[in-house]
C-alpha cells in the first residue's frame, strides 16, 4: 500500500516538535526506534500518528528505554537505511553509551535532542546540560534557535550524515518548551521538494546485502583503537565542515533560507558581542538592536554547528571585538562554561585583544530576560571602555540570592 502525501500550506503553524516530526515524515525515514520523554515526546508521537494515518511507510519501533531506542537505531542503520529518533535530558543520559557506539561505527543516524536540564533536582525545562553532556561523543551537532530551523536542520542533517564521505550521526538540538512547544509560522518545503533534497538513501556496508557480509562493531585495543579515533577526528575536522557548507548552500538555493556554521547578527562593526545558543540567540538579537539605539555597538553570534566546532570562524568574527560574553546554559560543575572554553581556545595564540567573560544563565528553564541582556551588554561596554575586565570572569545571572561570580 503506497503511503499518502500531504499538501502543505505555504505557511503552517507548527511548534518545534511538530516541525521535526514533519521533517522525519518528508525524509521518508525507514526506521524510527524511540522512547518518549518530555519535552521531546511529541516528535515520536507525531511520527506514530503519521504511521497510523498512512503518511509514512517506515517502521516505528516503540522500545522500552532510550538506551534500547538508540541500540535499535544502530542495528537498523547498520542494516542499511534511513534512521532517526528523539530524546532529551535523562533519556539522553541513559542513551549516552550508545551515542559513542553509533559514531564509532560511523552510522548516519539523526537524533533530535530537545534540550532539557539534567536531574537532580528533577526538572523538565530547558537548559543545555544534556547537549553539553554528549558534546564530545563524535556526533555532528546542529543547534536550532526556533521551530523553522528545527524543521530545516532535520532535513539538512540527513543529507550531511548520509554523505559517504561523512558517515557520521547528527544531533539536531532545539530548546525544550521554548522552541519545542512554541508554535510559529513555518514555511515548509513540499513533500517532493523535501524528499528530493534529502535524496534516496544510499546504503554502504549494509548488513542486508547478503552478497557482501560485513562485520560491524569490532574490537580494537592499543594496536588500532587510536588510529580509528584519530582518523575519525581528522575527517570531522577536515571533511565535515565543507560538506556542511555545501548542504547549507544547496538548501538555500531550494528554500531561500541561508544557514551558516556561526550565525552573525550586527557583527560587522560591533564593539561588544554575545555568543550563545538556542532560543536565547533571538532574544539577544532583539536586545542587540535596541542597544544600538543607546549607542552601544552590540552584536550576536549564534552557534549553529557545535561539532565540529567552527574555531576559525569564531576567531575570525571575534578577533576585533573589544569585549565578548560567552553564555553557557549549563551548570559548569567546577569549570568555565563549555562555550567560554571553546571561544577562548579559538582566540588563544592569536593577536586578538578581545576581553572574554562567561555567563551562566537559564538553568532549569529560568528565563533569560531582555533586562538581563541589557545589563550584560552594558557591562561588556564598560569592560571595553576600561580595556580590562571589571567583573570576575565567570558570573551567574538570573539566580536568586547573593551575586555569584568566580575566576
Amino acid at each position, binding site marked *: 500500500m503506497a503511503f499518502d502525501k500531504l499538501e502543505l500550506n505555504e505557511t503552517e503553524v507548527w511548534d518545534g516538535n511538530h516541525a521535526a516530526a514533519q521533517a522525519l515524515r518528508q525524509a521518508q525515514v525507514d526506521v524510527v526506534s524511540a522512547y518518549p520523554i518530555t519535552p521531546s515526546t511529541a516528535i515520536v508521537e507525531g511520527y506514530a500518528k503519521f504511521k497510523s494515518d498512512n503518511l509514512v511507510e517506515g517502521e516505528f519501533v516503540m*522500545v522500552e528505554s532510550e538506551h534500547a531506542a538508540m541500540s535499535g537505531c544502530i542495528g537498523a542503520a547498520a542494516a542499511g537505511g534511513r534512521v532517526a529518533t528523539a530524546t532529551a535530558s535523562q533519556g539522553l543520559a541513559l542513551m549516552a553509551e550508545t551515542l559513542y557506539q553509533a559514531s564509532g561505527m560511523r552510522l548516519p543516524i539523526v537524533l533530535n535532542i530537545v534540550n532539557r536540564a539534567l536531574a537532580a533536582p528533577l526538572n523538565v525545562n530547558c537548559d543545555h546540560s544534556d547537549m553539553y553532556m554528549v558534546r564530545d561523543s563524535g556526533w555532528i551537532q546542529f543547534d536550532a534557535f526556533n521551530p523553522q530551523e528545527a524543521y530545516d536542520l532535520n532535513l539538512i542533517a540527513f543529507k550531511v550524515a548520509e554523505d559517504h564521505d561523512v558517515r557520521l550521526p547528527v544531533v539536531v538540538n532545539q530548546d525544550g518548551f521554548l522552541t519545542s512547544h512554541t508554535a510559529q509560522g513555518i514555511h515548509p518545503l513540499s513533500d517532493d521538494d523535501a524528499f528530493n533534497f534529502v535524496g534516496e538513501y544510499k546504503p554502504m556496508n549494509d548488513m542486508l546485502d547478503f552478497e557482501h557480509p560485513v562485520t*560491524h562493531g569490532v574490537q580494537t585495543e592499543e594496536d588500532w583503537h587510536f588510529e580509528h579515533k584519530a582518523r575519525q577526528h581528522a575527517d570531522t575536522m577536515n571533511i565535515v565542515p565543507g560538506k556542511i557548507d555545501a548542504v547549507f548552500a544547496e538548501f538555500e538555493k531550494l528554500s531561500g533560507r541561508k544557514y551558516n556554521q556561526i550565525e552573525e547578527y550586527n557583527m560587522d562593526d560591533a564593539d561588544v558581542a554575545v555568543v550563545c545558543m538556542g532560543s536565547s540567540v533571538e532574544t539577544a538579537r532583539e536586545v542587540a538592536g535596541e542597544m544600538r539605539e543607546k549607542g552601544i555597538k552590540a552584536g550576536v553570534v549564534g552557534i549553529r554547528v557545535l561539532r565540529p566546532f567552527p574555531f576559525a570562524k569564531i576567531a575570525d568574527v571575534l578577533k576585533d571585538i573589544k569585549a565578548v560574553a560567552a553564555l553557557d546554559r549549563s551548570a559548569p560543575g567546577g569549570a568555565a562554561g563549555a562555550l567560554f572554553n571553546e571561544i577562548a581556545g579559538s582566540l588563544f595564540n592569536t593577536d586578538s585583544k578581545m576581553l572574554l567573560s562567561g555567563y551562566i544563565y537559564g538553568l532549569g528553564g529560568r528565563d533569560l530576560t531582555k533586562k538581563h541582556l541589557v545589563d550584560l551588554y552594558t557591562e561588556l561596554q564598560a569592560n571595553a571602555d576600561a580595556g580590562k575586565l571589571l567583573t570576575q570572569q565567570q558570573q551567574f545571572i538570573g539566580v536568586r540570592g547573593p551575586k555569584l561570580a568566580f575566576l
Partner: protein
Amino acid sequence: MSEMKKIKNLKEFSTSADRFEGANLLCPGCAHSIIVREVLNATNDDLVLAASTGCLEVCTAVYPYTSWDASWIHIGFENGSTAVAGAEAMYKALKTKGRLKQPDRNPKFVAFGGDGSSYDIGFQWISGCMERNHDMMYVVLDNEVYANTGGQRSSSTPIGASATTTPAGSISYGETRNKKDMMGIMAAHNIPYAAQVSPNKWKDMVKKIQKGFATEGAVFINAVSPCTTEWKFDPKDTMHLADLATDSLVFPLYEVIDGHEFNITYRPKNVVPVEEYLAAQGRFKHLFKDEYKYLIKEWQERVDANWAYLNRREEARV
C-alpha cells in the same frame, strides 16, 4: 520459503559451509563455538547476526579479523538483542518499500549473548524484544558465569558454585542464590517459541533451532555452554560435561510453545546423580567437604522437584 537443512548425522554438520569460522580466539574446549555452529548450520538461509559483549564477541571480531562469514554486529554488553531487532525492523521497512537488494532472500535474525548479558545486564532489552515479538531468535550461551571478565557470578550462577565475586572460603560455600529461571520468565512473555538446548544433544538442538527459524515472531533459546575455564574441567571433557548436565536433569531439555504448551524433549534412560555432575567440576569442589555435603543433597532435591514441576506443566498444558 525458508530452506531447512536436512541434517541426519554429524558428518553432514562437518561438511556444511561454515559461516562461523574455526579461526577464532575462544578457549580450546569452549562450547560456545559448537553451539554457534549448530545454530548457524541448521539453515541455508541468509543470516543477520549480533553478539553482545562477551566471550563470543571478543574472540571472533578483533580488528582486522573476523570469524563471521555472515552479516554480524556488536554494539555493547546489553543490547545485542535490540541490535538485531533494529535490523529486523529495517528489513521490514525496506521490504515494504521495495528496496531490498536481494528481495528473494529469507533472512534469519539471530542474537547471541552470554548469561551475563542475558540474565543480567541485557535482561530488559531481551524482554522488550520478546514482548514486541520481533521476528528474531535470541540465543543465550549459558555458562553460568561472567567468563569473559574472569569468572564473576551472574544471576545464572547456581548455588554452591565458587565464582570470583562469590568465592568459596573458610566460612563460605560460594554462591548462595539459586539460578534464575530465565526460561520461565521468557516463556511468560507468551512468545511463540522458547526452548532449552544442549550441544551434546545436537539432534534435539537442530530440531528446536529449525522450529525456531520456522516460527514467525520472537524465539528464545537457552543453551547450556560448559565452560572449561570457569567450571574447571579438562578441555577434552566439554561434551562429557554437557552429557552430565542433561542426564542429571540439572539442565533439562524442553520447549514451551506460546507460553503454555510444555514439551519435555529428552528423557535420559539412565538419570545420573547430580553429585556426579558436581564432582566433575572444580567450581563445586568445596561442596564435597563434610560440612557442605548437605548442599549436594539439597541440590538433588531441587533438581528432582524441578523435573517433577516440568512434568506437571507438560501434562497440564498450562
